[in-house]
Each structure stands twice: as structure tokens, then as C-alpha cells.
């Protein structure tokens, strides 16, 4: 064995060898009996310098342990816990976290968009151009029932609106006009929300206007 390898063995004994070199030296050490004997003598030198008295320096302890382990089964890779396997079971965690973050971000964007100053005005403009107007004929519920038409709701306009705020009445009418495209339950919930959120004129607790509701078959 050359001097460089001996030097590496000495450094490895002191835990001063680079990990990559340790791997190679460990392989040599486990197979080469002469190298192992030298390694054992390095330990003896250390024990003498530390004056480890009472400890037999020529004790056959290593040989006895080795003899006992001959009867032991060799350890296998299966018996060693594998960290990558445990990590593999958690693949869904980053996916779920990403989906949750994307959902929260989408809600935030929608909320910010709704809070923008021009949003209400543009919606008001859309509503003014909507087909529902004051002169739009209101179909009585009884007629609607008899004609086999879907549920219909009529909410009268409120005379006064704040700038930039869409009156609930207009919004409700808009929803009614497009009720063909929404399920009845969602429509009902939306209208209920409009009525409860709109301030009642005159301090009345009940929403003003006639809310005619007919339930479909």
C-alpha cells in the first residue's frame, strides 16, 4: 500500500477525510485484513497516549465480537429504514398546497377586482342597457303559472341610488331577467341576499316593494 493510502487511513481514523474518500477507504478497510490490523494499532496508540489504564490493549474483544456476529444474519438493505420511501408517500402534499394557494389567490383577485372604483360604474352601465326596464311587462305569477313559464320575481326600482353603487333592485331585476340561465335555488338565495342587504327606506324592517314569488311545480 502506498503512502498516500496510509495517510488517508490515518485521516479517516481522525474523521478528517472527505466523505467521498471515506467511502472508498471504508470499502478497502472492510476487506483488507492488514489494513484493518493497522487501523486497530492506531486505536491502541491512542489508548496508550490517553493512558487508558485497566484496559487490556491486546484484548481479543474485536475477535470475540466478530466470532459472535458470524452466526448473525448479515443486515440487508430492506432492514434499513428508507427515507426516500417515506417521502414518496407525501407526494400529494405539495400538490394540495399549490392548489390551495391558487384558490386563495383567485379569490383575492376577484375580490380586488370587485373593489375597484370603475367596477360598479361599468356594471351600472351594463344594467342600464339591460333588457329589464321600467316598462318591461311584468308577468303576473298566476299567468306565468298558467303559461307554464318558470318562476318569476319582480322587484320595483328604488328611486335613489348612490353613485358607483348598483342598487339592489336593479341588480335583482337583472338577475330575474337572466333567470333562465340560473338554477332556482341559487336564484332564490341571491334575491334573498339582495333584499336583506338593501337598506329599508323609512326605517321599515321589511323590504319595500312587492316580492311575488310563485313556486313552480
Amino acid at each position, binding site marked *: 500500500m502506498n503512502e498516500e493510502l*496510509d*495517510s488517508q487511513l*490515518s*485521516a*479517516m*481514523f*481522525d*474523521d*478528517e*477525510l*472527505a*466523505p467521498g474518500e*471515506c*467511502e472508498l*477507504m*471504508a*470499502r478497502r*478497510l*472492510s*476487506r483488507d485484513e492488514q489494513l*484493518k*490490523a*493497522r*487501523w*486497530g*494499532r*492506531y*486505536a*491502541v*496508540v*491512542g*489508548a*496508550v*497516549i*490517553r493512558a*487508558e*489504564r*485497566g*484496559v*487490556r*490493549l*491486546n*484484548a481479543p*474483544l*474485536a475477535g*470475540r*465480537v*466478530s466470532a*459472535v*456476529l*458470524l452466526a*448473525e444474519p*448479515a*443486515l*440487508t*438493505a430492506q*432492514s*434499513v*429504514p428508507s*427515507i426516500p420511501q417515506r417521502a414518496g408517500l407525501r407526494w400529494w402534499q405539495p400538490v394540495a398546497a399549490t392548489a390551495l394557494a391558487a384558490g386563495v389567490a383567485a379569490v383575492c383577485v376577484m375580490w380586488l377586482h370587485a373593489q375597484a372604483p370603475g367596477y360598479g360604474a361599468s356594471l351600472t352601465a351594463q344594467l342600464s342597457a339591460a333588457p329589464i326596464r321600467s316598462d318591461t311587462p311584468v308577468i303576473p305569477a298566476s299567468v306565468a303559472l298558467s303559461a307554464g313559464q318558470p318562476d318569476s320575481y319582480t322587484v320595483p326600482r328604488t328611486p335613489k341610488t348612490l353613485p358607483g353603487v348598483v342598487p339592489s333592485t336593479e341588480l335583482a331585476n337583472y338577475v330575474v331577467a337572466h333567470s333562465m340561465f340560473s338554477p332556482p335555488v341559487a336564484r332564490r338565495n341571491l334575491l334573498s341576499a339582495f333584499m336583506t342587504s338593501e337598506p329599508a327606506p323609512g326605517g321599515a324592517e321589511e323590504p319595500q316593494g312587492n316580492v311575488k314569488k310563485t313556486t313552480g311545480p
Partner: protein
Amino acid sequence: MSADASDLSLVRRVQRGDKGAFDALVLKYQHKLVKLVMRYVRNPAEAEDIAQEAFIKAYRALPQFRGDSAFYTWLYRIAINTAKNAVVSRDRSPIEYDLDRHNSDESYEMQGRMKDSETPEGLVLTDEIRSTVNAAIDALPEDLRTAIVLRELEGLSYEEIAAAMDCPVGTVRSRIFRAREAIDRRLREVFEGGLGRAEELG
């Protein structure tokens, strides 16, 4: 440089089924472990038995060792528990750690001879090993002797020794290696001669 990398590389080999790598770990730590166990039991022979049991327990538990702590720290805990269990099961109280007693060469010599009296050649060999190593250390150039003593006695890292000796780390590594080689040349003769004498006695 990662601490404990050499032990970990040997441990990984054992975990992959290489029993020879475990021999290297036993050779490296057997003296430290026996010394540790002797804090709990009086008889050196019993300390060796307990150390042997600790090594075998460590081998069997090695699949659970993940390297979160240093191997010797893990082995140390196993040895302490094994020693405590041995003391309890044999209904013996652990000896108190008496500094004066531990610093007394005579006391340790007596303890050592309790076992060595069973094997006279072992007693001679132990004394011969000790005197040979000490003589070899005395014969070393001062820079080599200082480096090996700082490493083995004080437990300093190469970097710390380099700072203490005001030299590069590579020089420290070379000095420690040359010191070990000089001592090992003499020690090898003792071991080979001792084995020859043992065979003659056998």
C-alpha cells in the same frame, strides 16, 4: 469536512450487509467502550463482557441507526444502558467515580492484573505494548509528537491543531500520519512477537 463521515461510511457498509466494516468500528472504539463501562463495574473482564454485549446489541440495532447523531454517541448510550442493566441484574452497586482512585496508576494496574493474571502472556504483552508506544512517542521529533498528542490526548481537530502549531492543515495531517507510522513500525513488531510467544505457549 463533515464530522463522523468515516464512521458513517463504515456504518452504511454494515447496513448493506458488510460485516467486515463492523470489525473496523469495534477495533476503533473497543478501548473507549471498555474504559466507559469500567465506571460501572469493577472487574475489567466483566467490563469487556459488557462491552462485547453492547457491540452486539449495536450491530443488531444498526438498521434503526439513521445517522442523526454521531455513531459513537449512539454506541455510548447503548453501552451505558447495557452496563446499568448488568449492574442491576447482578445486584451490584456501581462504583463511585473517585478522581483520586482513577488517577492512581496502582489502582488501575491492580484492576488490569485481575484479568491479566489469567493470561500471563497477556499481562506481559500489555506492558510491552505500553512501554513500546511510550518509547516510540518519546523518540519522535517534537513537531510530530506535539501533533499526535494534541490529537489523541486533547482530541483537537486538524484545524485546531493547525492553529495551535501555526501551520497548514495539510502539514498537520502529514505530521500525525508520520507519527503514527513511526510508532506503528515498533508496535507491529511487538504484536507479531507477542503472537509468536502466545503460539509457543499454546
